[in-house]
Every structure is written in structure tokens, then in C-alpha cells.
């Protein structure tokens, strides 16, 4: 315990506070996804269908390619240095991809939570969504090894984006009940 006594107490407290706040933020992200699922059941159903329709590799591919493309476009737009081009880029590329990413979170976070629980399919929606957010947040601890963190972030973001793009592109035919 000598090392603890000699450590910077203020630094430890700040680290603890950051961990607690990060955990709350991750759980809050899952809860926010659940709120949007409740408000927009059609979008949630489309995201669920997109997740179930494609294999994992195809979800990765359809998410990571646009993600890398958008990153390259961002560098190019930065080099151009024109406000109009930046505005067009934000409006045409960033906004739709962000919406698709959020749509992917609607299905992806509860799915992650259900996979993390022993009887995930029987757990409550809140437990699945909140735990999914927490699991995704904890996965970001892998940034202690930057290459691993980069790969995991790319996979996780690409997976969410692939789910969301599938949900936005492939709209389910409306049933008689929805009409």
C-alpha cells in the first residue's frame, strides 16, 4: 500500500471520476438508443432486419468502406480549405453517415448486450441496451494499445454503420397494419 500512499491522490481521484463518468455515459448511450427505439419503432425494425439479414463480414464491408472513404474525403476537404466545400461535405456525407451510424446503434447495442448476457434474449430491453453500451465503451479501453484500439474502433464503427446503411437503404415493405 506504500505505492498508493505515495501516488498522486488527486490524479487517482480524477481517474476514478473519469471511469465513473465514462461508464455512466456508455450506459446512457444504450438508454438513449432504447428511447429512440421506442419513439421510432419502424426505424428500429429496419435496423433489426438489416442486422439479421447480412452476415458479419458483409456488415463490416458495407460499413468500413464508406467510413474509410469519408475519412479520406475529410482529408481532401481539409486540403481544399474551402468553407463551401466543407459545408457540402458535412451536409452530403457526414450527416447521412451519422444518421446511419445512429440507426445502427439502435439494433447493434441491444444485440451486443444480449450476446454479453447468459440468457440475453430473455433479458429486459433496458438491460440489453445499457449493457451493450457499456460493453462497447469498455472495448475502447483497447486504445491502451493504439493499433488494437484502431482496429477495434474501425470494426465496431463499421459494424454499426453497416447495420444503419442497410436499414436506410433497404426499407421494409409496409405491412397492412402500418398502413
Amino acid at each position: 500500500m506504500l505505492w498508493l500512499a505515495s501516488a498522486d491522490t488527486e490524479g487517482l481521484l480524477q481517474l476514478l471520476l473519469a471511469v465513473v463518468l465514462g461508464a455512466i455515459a456508455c450506459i446512457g448511450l444504450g438508454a438513449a438508443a432504447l428511447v429512440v427505439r421506442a419513439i421510432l419503432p419502424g426505424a428500429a425494425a429496419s435496423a433489426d432486419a438489416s442486422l439479421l439479414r447480412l452476415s458479419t463480414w458483409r456488415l463490416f464491408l458495407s460499413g468500413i468502406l464508406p467510413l474509410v472513404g469519408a475519412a479520406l474525403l475529410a482529408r481532401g476537404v481539409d486540403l481544399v480549405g474551402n468553407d463551401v466545400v466543407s459545408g457540402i461535405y458535412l451536409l452530403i456525407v457526414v450527416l447521412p453517415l451519422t444518421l446511419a451510424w445512429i440507426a445502427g446503434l439502435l439494433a447493434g447495442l441491444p444485440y451486443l448486450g444480449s450476446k454479453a448476457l447468459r440468457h440475453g434474449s430473455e433479458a429486459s430491453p433496458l438491460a440489453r441496451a445499457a449493457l451493450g453500451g457499456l460493453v462497447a465503451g469498455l472495448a475502447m479501453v483497447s486504445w491502451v494499445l493504439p493499433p488494437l484500439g484502431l482496429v477495434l474502433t474501425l470494426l465496431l464503427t463499421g459494424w454499426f454503420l453497416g447495420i444503419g446503411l442497410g436499414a436506410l437503404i433497404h426499407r421494409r415493405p409496409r405491412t397492412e397494419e402500418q398502413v
Partner: protein
Amino acid sequence: MDEYPAPADSPRTPAGEFPADVDAALESVLREQRLLPLPLALMSRILGEILPLERVRPLTLLSRVAAAAAVFLAAWFAFAGNAPALADVAPSAKVAAALPSSLGPDGRAGDALAAADALTTTSVSAGAWVLLGSGLLLLLAGLALTIWFHQPAPGAARGERT
């Protein structure tokens, strides 16, 4: 897959189908002969899982290897190609310092500096265009693949995972 005519000397089963292990056997032979490096084989395996290239079964392995090579080349061009070098061109002061002093009177040196500035501006624009083009290409490729993946496969069961 039967719509592709088979070569006369290709192995065919009595039912008229290509044997399922032709591709595996070909891959095995190539690997034994060390003609297919392991990373490329892994990439071809992954791409084979992703893309429904089995529709062109006689060319499956070739298609996978070509697709893997294309992905590698695109990634190299996007991340490690000349784009950063083009964007990171020397400022005009360095260009001016590198110019020989025997350019003549100030007017001609000014012209040379203006030309160097124009060249620098062109290079930055070229780097930006390379980034914009490759980014747009990847973005559109991803969207096209997403649309393709979500097309209902003919004869596939409803709700089946593809």
C-alpha cells in the same frame, strides 16, 4: 451457375454440375506450389466469404485473388501513395532558395517565383483531388456493395441470412 458454358475438357459430374471441390483442389495445388502466398490466400478466403463469387465458379479463385489484389492496391494508393507527398510540397521560400541565382534580373526571378508558386498550388490541388477521388470511390463502392448485399437473392428463403 449452369448458365456458364463449361469448357469441353473440364471435369463434370454426371449431373452436369462442377464438382464442389474443384476450387478447393486448385487452391490446394497453388498453395503447395507456393504460388499463393498466405496473406493473399487469407484475403481471398475472406473475400470469398463476403462476395457471392461462387456464381462464377470456374473463375472463383482467380476472381478472389484479383479482388484481393485490387483491395490491396486501393488501400496502398489511399494511405501510402503519393497523396501525402503531393500535399506536403515544399513552400515557395524553399523553391526560391533552390532556384539558381543566375536567373537574370529581378523581373525574371519574380516570374520564376510566380511559376514556382503556381506549381506548388497545382501540387496541393492534385493531392486534394487524389484524396477526394479515392474517398469518393470508396464511399460509393461501400454504398453500392450495401445495395447489392440487400438485394433479395433469387430463390433464397425469406429472412435467411446472406
